[in-house]
């Protein structure tokens, strides 16, 4: 409503009204681009994010467990962490060329740091009592990691995973504006360049927002699992 009113009252003709944006989404669907672009963006996020999960979690756990590794690598981690993944775009293009791989690499980077740090801190926060109980029952190192350390860090890890996925989704859109020719980020930049189609720009923004909310809701669903609920304050 507020949006509609603001458009009617404002002198600019470029910004679309809600119904124009909605028609933009319908047009995308008719041209067969809607699904294609969503899938393209999700494809890149999935790969970049999964790759980060597979590497960052064991890496973060290791750093958390071995003080010496942490001392050696944490400064580097802390310096790399605040660099926006977008700053890596030139290097990504240099290494991987213009295309999917560059975008996936950027998403990997964007999720890697928050995941590593989350896993490392979660290991620090494990109750000493639980580790000692595990040792007392005669577990080997690998058994201890599998049956005590991993389940103990899972609640905190899931929070980290949620944050990382949010960042990954932010980054995929930005990366697509530069490095590729499909996806929702590409849609936005392309709609503007190809004749100021601001209805499509706003349509793209709405889609990004809605998908972001859905992704976050999926991650929130993980927090409801029976074996991690202990880690969150009861509402």
């Amino acid at each position, binding site marked *: 409503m507020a949006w509609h009113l603001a458009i009617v009252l404002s002198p600019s003709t470029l910004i679309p009204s809600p119904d124009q944006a909605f028609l933009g989404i319908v047009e995308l669907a008719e041209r067969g681009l809607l699904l294609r672009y969503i899938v393209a963006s999700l494809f890149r996020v999935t790969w970049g994010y999964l790759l980060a999960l597979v590497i960052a979690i064991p890496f973060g756990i290791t750093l958390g467990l071995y003080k010496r590794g942490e001392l050696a690598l944490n400064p580097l981690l802390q310096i790399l962490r605040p660099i926006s993944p977008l700053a890596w775009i030139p290097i990504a293009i240099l290494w991987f060329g213009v295309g999917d791989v560059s975008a996936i690499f950027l998403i990997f980077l964007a999720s890697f740091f928050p995941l590593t740090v989350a896993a490392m801190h979660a290991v620090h926060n494990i*109750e000493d*009592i*639980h580790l*000692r*109980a595990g*040792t*007392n*029952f*005669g*577990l080997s190192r690998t*058994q201890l990691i599998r*049956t*005590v350390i991993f*389940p*103990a860090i*899972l609640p905190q890890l899931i929070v980290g995973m949620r944050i990382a996925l949010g960042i990954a989704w932010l980054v995929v859109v930005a990366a697509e504006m530069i490095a590729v020719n499909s996806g929702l980020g590409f849609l936005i930049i392309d709609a503007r360049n190809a004749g100021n189609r601001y209805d499509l720009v706003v349509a793209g923004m709405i889609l990004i927002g809605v998908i972001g909310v859905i992704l976050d809701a999926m991650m929130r669903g993980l927090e409801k699992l*029976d*074996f*991690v*609920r*202990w*880690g969150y304050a*009861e509402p």
Partner: protein
Amino acid sequence: MSKVQFNHLSMRFPGVEVLRDISLDVREGEFVCILGPSGCGKTTLLNIVGGFLQPTEGEVTIDGVRVTQPDPRRIFVFQERGVFPWLTVEQNIGFGLFKLTEEEKRARIAHYVQLVGLVGFERSYPRELSGGMKQRLEVARALAVNPDVLYLDEPFGALDSITRLQMRRELLRIWQAEKKTILFVTHDIEESVQLADRVVVMSQRPAHIQRIVDIDIRHPRDLSAPRYIQLRDSIFAEIGLAHQV
């Protein structure tokens, strides 16, 4: 027969002497309470027996073998926080049973669920249990691996006073049924006199054994019997407290 032996045990952390020359013989199947003021080093002592800490001097032997690391034949029971919150009651009890077959494991779990009175809660998570239930669960998890010694570190400290009394009765019942050697650390004089065969009274830091009191009353103990009160008051006096507020 002697089960756990402390031979001239001393412990120093940088700048602090915590334990001084502690020697003690615990018989097989005996229930010994280690009693002392907060912060006197009782927990340190238990950590050394448990193999989690190495003493500065002296040694602990169990069945004549020197203790150097934790061992599943002797299980440590913490306050109820020690249960794994990500596992259900039956998974917690089964935690240390990874060497058994599925069938043996199931039977063992069922037995201890029964023993500590958690029937009907097998699939519950610790967050759904009361403090006393969690404490019983931890005792069950410890007993399930069939240890010959149990170490309890102020296990009932976080419970309300009624639950605490019930838990003491439960523990005595379990101890009589399972014939374990028990080392029980507490700062509660009444608790020690209610439970133990012998009470080892520790001094302030650096802690040494001030006196060992034989509690020569049979279970179940009458808490208003003259002998009970006499023993209790002698320990109060030993610690330097007149028994009045």
